[in-house]
């Protein structure tokens, strides 16, 4: 039973309810940071940390917070953890801090975190909320890092900051521009949906046979 629930939460977070490709939440950092895969990883880690912490605290307080003021309370809790993350990152990872720029404080208004607080943590026990935060964060991290790798490779001819060849020889600069961000994201969502539809059809066919 416990294992089944664990599997369910994990699958929901990373695949079935993937915040980036399925729910299309938290789009600003997804579009803004994917020019470099390294900063995507950093952003993913920051969001995952905030998501786990805020889910745990909100889940612990779910019976205390009055329904009417729940959104402001959630925002204050989230903002606290974002401030914490920001201070730690500024002190120990200054390079990452400057490459995330304005998107770091903007984690506060990232819809994924508020969305999970509202739809999961506010009526589920602590353990499950922490797991949900972990896997939703992982889903986000994997998704933006994939996009980051593709855009960095095509636009800058490098992988995780390592130059593969001279980008003046061959690279498609379009993918580093803002237009390239929209195109890549659109195609990724389309591809994700297509794969998911194909798997569903297969499962249905299997069920029909059996």
């Amino acid at each position, binding site marked *: 039973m416990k294992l089944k629930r664990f599997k369910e939460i994990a699958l929901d977070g990373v695949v079935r309810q993937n915040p980036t490709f399925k729910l*299309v*939440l938290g*789009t*600003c*950092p997804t*579009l*803004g940071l994917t020019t470099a895969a390294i900063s995507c990883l950093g952003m993913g880690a920051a969001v995952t940390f905030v998501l786990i912490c805020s889910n745990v605290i909100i889940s612990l307080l779910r019976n205390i917070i009055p329904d009417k003021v729940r959104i*402001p309370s959630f*925002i*204050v809790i989230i*903002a*606290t953890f*974002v*401030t914490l993350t*920001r*201070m730690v990152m*500024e002190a120990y990872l*200054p390079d990452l*801090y*400057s490459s995330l*720029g*304005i998107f770091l*404080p*903007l984690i*506060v*208004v*990232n*819809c994924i975190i*508020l969305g999970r607080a509202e739809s999961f943590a506010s009526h589920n026990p602590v353990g499950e909320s922490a797991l949900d935060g972990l896997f939703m964060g992982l889903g986000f991290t994997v998704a933006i890092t994939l996009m980051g790798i593709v855009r960095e490779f095509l636009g800058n001819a490098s992988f995780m900051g390592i130059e593969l060849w001279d980008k003046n020889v061959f690279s498609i600069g379009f993918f580093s*521009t*803002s*237009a*390239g*961000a*929209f*195109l890549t*994201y*659109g*195609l990724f*969502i*389309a*591809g994700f*949906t*297509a794969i998911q*539809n194909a798997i569903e059809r297969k499962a249905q066919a299997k069920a029909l046979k059996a």
Partner: protein
Amino acid sequence: MSGILSIIIAALFSQNFILVKFLGICPFLGVSKKVDSALGMGLAVTAVMVITCVVTYPIYTFILLPLGLEYMEILVFILVIAALVQMLEMLLKKFSPGLYSAMGVYLPLVTTNCAILGIAESVIAKATSAESAGFILKDGFFMQYSMGTAALAGLFYGLGFTLAIVLLAGIRQKVDKLNIAKPLRGFPITMIVACFMAMAFYVFTLIG
């Protein structure tokens, strides 16, 4: 004078919050099915942006900075913005029901919009440039910002937001009627439309 003009051009086109800076994408995708609702959302964002700039700038410069509480900025800004939006909603409901019915429904959505917190953070970041050199908005003119220019920036960044969202809504009304391959329907095709719009706006960044 030319300073003001360059702020206006930057805010509307070359630094467009949606298509160049990627702030406020959620309403851009979510509330752009119809031109009227896009316009309502755009105006609500513009109004809140102006008020946010006018209020957060003095709070930061005259309260947080002298007391050494800069690290509280996220917490303070988000609460101030939430309170302001709530107040604006109540005032509109009381004094101008017509305007309230046009843009009131979008106001609660504006609170958790990156564009609003983004403008607060970037106006402040430029106002105290030495400390926050890490912030990405690289244009120099935020530095000499006084209250008036901060408000002006809020107004025109908001109008730039409105411009982008209304244009997208106009295109989407046509695109949604087309027969598109199934996986591309909905968000993906909207992203691709936005891609072409961003290409058009990219030209402005080359001039600016």
